[in-house]
């Protein structure tokens, strides 16, 4: 597995290279966005309200005269903070719980996996809507909620892989040699579940962005005035007759971001899981 990662297998796949080329600038924007935005995304300008494109405002202005380009550049940051935070949380929680359930079995397995099943039986947005709705919106709550909603996917992956690996002889050999749990985890189990988990990470990132922007669109996600793509689309909807470009730009940006991450996930699956090629 580690050898595979150092191989050039990733860069032979054109789709993967393409998605990286598109995604890297978006990520850079998310990191340095606030420093390069031409205007303060919160700066209100009453003389420039809902212009479609004007000198100095290539993408136009919104209902408060704020620069749409600057809001886009800065709005991708909270989206990525929530998506990456939530994915990291669901990865950590899901993988640990899955490995515990798979390794120890018995009652531990029953409790952990049944709870995961229960989370899975709600459509994600419904669960997130209720939790965020009663808990209050905001970046931290979003991260925790979305992280919980997606952890069962990781838990299931880690659980089934652990079950498979546990039965194999080299793990039994490790145990009989007196290896402790931490060693078995790092040497035996982690390398074997790495590939499916990398694929799941990219899928979860895309789903988390989708979920966050959806909640923000409903007004239950990121709190204004912080710019956020979903929030912008939700607000722009009311001014669709006055400045249709106001709704088009954030939609386009969001759509491209999610599409590219999904394409990357698909290409990763092709690269890491050759069995599915057939």
């Amino acid at each position: 597995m580690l050898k595979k990662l150092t191989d050039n297998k990733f860069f032979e796949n054109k789709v993967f290279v393409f998605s990286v080329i598109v995604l890297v600038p978006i990520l850079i924007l998310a990191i340095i966005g606030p420093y390069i935005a031409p205007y303060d995304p919160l700066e209100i300008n009453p003389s420039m309200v809902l212009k479609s494109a004007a000198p100095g405002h290539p993408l136009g202005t919104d209902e408060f005269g704020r620069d749409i380009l600057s809001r886009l550049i800065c709005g991708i940051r909270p989206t990525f903070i929530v998506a990456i935070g939530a994915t990291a949380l669901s990865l950590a929680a899901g993988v640990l719980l899955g490995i515990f359930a798979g390794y120890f079995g018995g009652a531990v397995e029953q409790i952990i996996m049944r709870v995961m099943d229960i989370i899975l039986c709600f459509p994600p947005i419904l669960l997130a809507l209720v939790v965020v709705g009663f808990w209050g919106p905001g970046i931290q709550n979003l991260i925790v909620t979305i992280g919980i909603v997606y952890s069962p996917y990781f838990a299931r992956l880690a659980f089934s892989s652990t079950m498979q690996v546990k039965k194999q002889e080299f793990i039994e050999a490790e145990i009989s040699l007196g290896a402790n749990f931490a060693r078995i985890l790092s040497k035996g189990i982690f390398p074997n579940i790495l590939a499916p988990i990398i694929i799941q990470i990219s899928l979860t990132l895309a789903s988390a962005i989708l979920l966050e922007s959806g909640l923000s669109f409903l007004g239950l996600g990121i709190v204004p005035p912080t710019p956020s793509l979903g929030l912008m689309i939700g607000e722009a909807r009311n001014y669709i007759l006055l400045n249709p470009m106001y709704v088009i730009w954030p939609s386009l940006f969001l759509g491209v971001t999610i599409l590219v991450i999904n394409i990357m996930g698909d290409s990763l699956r092709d690269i890491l899981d050759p069995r599915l090629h057939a």
Partner: protein
Amino acid sequence: MALLQVFIIATIVFSIIHVMPGDPALLALGTERQQDPAAVAEMRHKLGIDRPLIEQYTTWLRNISKFDFGNSLFNNEPIKNYLAQRLPRTLELAIISTIIAVFIGIVSGIIAALRRGSAIDVGVTTLTALGISLPVYVLGTLFILIFCINLKWLPASGFVKFSQDPAGHILRLILPSLTLAFGMSASIARMTRSSLLETLNKEYIQTLRAKGLSKKAVIFKHALRNALIPVITIIGLQFGNLMGGTVLVEYLFNWPGLSTLLVEAVSHRDYPLAQGCIIAIASLFIFSNMIVDLLYGFLDPRVR
């Protein structure tokens, strides 16, 4: 089995509300009236949270089994009435979208599979990638821009009763159901395409062809029947996503269904109403899974 699932969901909904940090009574009252201890006590009594937890839980379960969800905190109307009014509208939207999605998805999937590598195949594959990635509200907004504002073919949003204005009702149903159907049909098309391609490579299909059966007969009588089994599974799984999608689509198109009610309840912190909505939506979800299981047995006799 389905009843057991509803029971589990009722239990979770109960515990979500009670595990949540903060006193529901305080939240329901808002910041101003929180200061008044009498109002808080009254609200606690109204919500029933001044009683022991076990008693609350058993009352909650008993009432639900009688479809009694209590009254809305805001206008004191029974939640049952709300649900009875809103549920058919969401169901209508969901069923029509599913029909559209199944039709478009299966047909385009079959065409893409039979013309593998052609321009149509590339087109379908690209559209499905878009359909899976594009958020429903982005797609819906684009539809509104194109069909309502530029072309002026359809009314943008709202709802009229079928009995009052059948044509207007159907016109207002078109865009929300197309929006919902798009993402679902993408998944169905993808699955149909790959499943049919896989089936056509199987040995028994080659045997049938070797026996001299026409290509049409092989595809429509034999291959398709087997290829559609995983497609049914996808349809079932996607129905859950569809129920989630209705939350956004109903909001976008001002369609007064169950999900809009849930969003309203959540933003007004109307706990009993939100509980009722979740149980209703989750029951729909479970019910649809049951139907998928039945269909499964119908298509694949081994499961029966």
